């Protein structure tokens, strides 16, 4: 299968799994518990499944190593988003928190290089 189709399959499966996690999040309450599903591994499951199908388990393990770093950065993102969203609103607050994610993810990636 060409690389274009593989990328398209990643996009389709990622979008569908994110929607599935979002629907579960919509069904549960309170809002704090619903938030757990907003940080669910939807994109990871989709990406790793496509990687497994076309590249094999070794590549999945390598991407999981990177994901450990990304997930630590995600914890930093969420922790900083709580006060930032309250102070700046959702759009500006989450944008500022993405800068925190990028900083932690970059430092972590350099650490495991």
């Amino acid at each position: 299968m060409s690389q274009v189709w593989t990328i398209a399959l990643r996009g389709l499966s990622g979008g569908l799994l994110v929607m599935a996690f979002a629907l579960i999040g919509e069904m549960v309450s309170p809002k704090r518990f619903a938030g757990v599903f907003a940080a669910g591994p939807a994109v990871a499951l989709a990406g790793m499944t496509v990687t497994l199908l076309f590249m094999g388990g070794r590549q999945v393990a390598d991407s999981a190593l990177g994901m450990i770093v990304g997930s630590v950065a995600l914890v930093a993102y969420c922790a900083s988003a709580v006060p930032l969203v309250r102070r700046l609103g959702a759009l500006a607050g989450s944008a500022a928190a993405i800068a925190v994610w990028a900083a932690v993810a970059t430092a972590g990636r350099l650490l495991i290089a």
Partner: protein
Amino acid sequence: MSAPRRMRIQPSKLRRVTLPGMALRFAFGAAVSVAAGLVGNRWGPVTGGVFLAFPAVLAATLTLIQDEEHSRIPASNDARGAVLGAVGMIAFALCVWALATRIPTFVAMGIALVAWAIVAAVLYLLIWGVRRSR
């Protein structure tokens, strides 16, 4: 501080789901997945893997919640819960990393998903369950 409410599953709440909201989440999920794939192709699977935990979908969700609820508080509460999901993501990634080459990879991913759910649920019950019982 108000007492936390009990965890509930209410399928009837799906009636509140809007098509534009779901389309936006699909678009962000697809975009992050494609970006992670492209980064992986260019700089290798480890760097691509970092983007499997990129928070674009969460940012979109927080913005949607604020628009729907007309308040910053529910979005902030959602982010609080997301911290626990994110800690669960570390457990997910650790499981896949440790098991993917030792057992069938699909099984490793299944175990990792269960680990994510258990870690997030246990943390939720420990943090807000304990506060509720006080």
